[in-house]
């Protein structure tokens, strides 16, 4: 029995004429302790997929099994890093995270909560901004608060919706390491949504492309058989890494071409104009 299993999951928005089928026949199995990355174009339905797994929305048809049980609603076992951060603007960085920690660990003393909050703020390097409100933070800082909030809840399954998109390369690399260390610490399971193929290959055990919607399905999966712990700089000279990365990029480019080829451009009659000469 897989840890997380999606069977023929379909999801559409709207009704009747306005109905858009976003996801069709999504089949995916994730084993306990695995790190899976899903890469895809914008608007292909990645956030929809994550929301389904978090239990925020329900599939139209198909089944989502978590530890063998169908998902109903949200659960503290499945943590989520929202793509749009979803921080509460009236709370400070500290309070945003503390609220989440208190919600999960109900029997903790305030000292335990405080320690947990501070240690995770430290992990994302925001100690200097601990008492700031979200509006006083940059986009990347907000994103890091969202990461800290989700990770501080210590979920068994971590769903990450483009968690590092707004960060510069250096911060990004540090946080990738941080997420990996939390993931491996007590063998959690992770699903990472990303638009950065390198990131997927660096972090995941498997990278699966999501074919662009409407009616998006999952493409062929790429197994990343590179030993951990992985080193970013060493990876650049790893032939296995290069082949995998190029393979995924080629696949994405190919489906990207198919998509644009599918859209027919109307044939415009251009008038026959010649620039006028003034002598």
């Amino acid at each position, binding site marked *: 029995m897989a840890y997380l299993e999606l069977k023929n999951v379909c999801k559409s928005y709207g009704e009747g004429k306005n109905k858009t089928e976003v996801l069709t026949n999504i089949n995916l199995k994730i084993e306990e302790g695995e790190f899976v990355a899903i890469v895809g174009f914008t608007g292909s339905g990645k956030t929809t997929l994550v929301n389904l797994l978090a239990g925020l929305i329900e599939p139209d048809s198909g089944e989502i099994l978590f530890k063998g049980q169908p998902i109903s609603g*949200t*659960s*503290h076992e499945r943590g989520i890093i*929202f793509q*749009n951060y979803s921080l509460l603007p*009236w709370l400070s960085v500290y309070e945003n995270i503390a*609220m989440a920690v208190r919600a999960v660990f109900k029997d903790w003393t305030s000292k335990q909560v405080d320690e947990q909050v501070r240690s995770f703020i430290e992990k994302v390097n925001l100690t200097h901004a601990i008492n700031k409100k979200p*509006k006083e933070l940059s986009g990347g800082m907000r994103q890091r608060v969202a990461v800290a909030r989700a990770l501080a809840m210590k979920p068994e399954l971590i769903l990450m919706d483009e968690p590092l998109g707004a960060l510069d390369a250096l911060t990004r690399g540090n946080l990738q390491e941080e997420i990996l260390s939390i993931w491996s610490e007590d063998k959690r399971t992770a699903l990472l949504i990303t638009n950065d193929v390198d990131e997927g290959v660096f972090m995941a055990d498997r990278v699966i492309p999501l074919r662009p919607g409407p009616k998006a399905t999952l493409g062929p999966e790429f197994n990343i058989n590179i030993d951990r712990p992985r080193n970013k700089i060493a990876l650049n000279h790893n032939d296995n890494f290069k082949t995998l990365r190029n393979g995924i990029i080629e696949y994405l480019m190919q489906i990207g071409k198919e998509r644009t080829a599918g859209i027919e451009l109307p044939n415009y009659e251009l008038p026959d104009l010649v620039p006028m000469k003034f002598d």
Partner: protein
Amino acid sequence: MKTKIIKAVKFMGLGYLEPLIRLITGEEVRKNSKDAFKRILFPLLSVVVFILLWHSFSNYLNNVESTLKIEKTLKNQGPEAAKKLEDCIASGDISCRPNSLPSPAMVATALGKLWDDHKIMATKKQDFIDKYETINEERAANGEIEIVYTGRPSFVDQIKTSLKTVFAGFLLSIIIAVPLGIVLGLSDTLRTSFNWLIQILKPVSPVVWLLLVSMIVKTVLTDVDVEKSFVISFISVGLCSMWATLVNTSVGVSSVDKDFMNVAKVLQLGTIKKIFKIILPSSFPMIFTGLRITLSVAWMVLIAIELLAQSPGLGSFVWEEFQNGSSDSNSKIIVAMFVIGIIGFMLDRIMMIFQKLLTFTD
């Protein structure tokens, strides 16, 4: 220090003082003196222009009125009386001045007079209280009713009474409208089923509320020992003004950002926690806007309600002056007008400061 002062000043909505403060501390003299000119001198100039226009308009009205009056006297009482009236008007004697728009100077005099009256009345009242202090103590010990001061209230007393009434009414509307708005906001069914009632009651005029409230209060409070007119007016003010808060609260509560609701779901907050930690804070800006409207409506209708309910306050002050028709009544009414306006403005500013303190901005 300077930045702190500027921040505080801006917070109170007095941002136009900023260039002046910077100028005084000698910062960017040229730019700031220009700004200070623009933001302080021009408004001051506009006040001067306003007073000049008012002055000449009241002069004009006065002249028209005087001519009419003299002509009328001439026709009815003969040239002798007319000549006498003309001289009287020309001498500037206030008792002969025709009854029209008072000039700014007259209003200023009236203001001074009201203030002097207040001081005289206040000493009178204090004397009375001092005099009866021991007697009242004895009476209280014997279980008798104490003797209270029943002299005419001064202008300042009227302002105080009005403020008391408006705050009581405002409090009442908060107590009713905020919880009710939350309940309506949380339940789509309730909101749609009671929408008609809100839409119908919202535009009802203060006069009607007053009549309705007095119908009820009259019977309910037959033997309770309170000032009935005060109760009637503050309840009417509350009922009249609470609608903005009710509607804003229910809209704010029902339209909480979906992202915030997702956070509540992911954290699996219980109903109570969800209301107090997510829904209320996120609808606070809307609720506060409603409260601001409520307070300004309350202050506006209060004057009309006091006037009608014969309950003490600025409204009845205006009404009494109007009825009394003495030579400086019109000026006193204009004084009351400015006082009402300035207090309304200040109440709004106070609410704005509270709003800034208590709500978040994106």
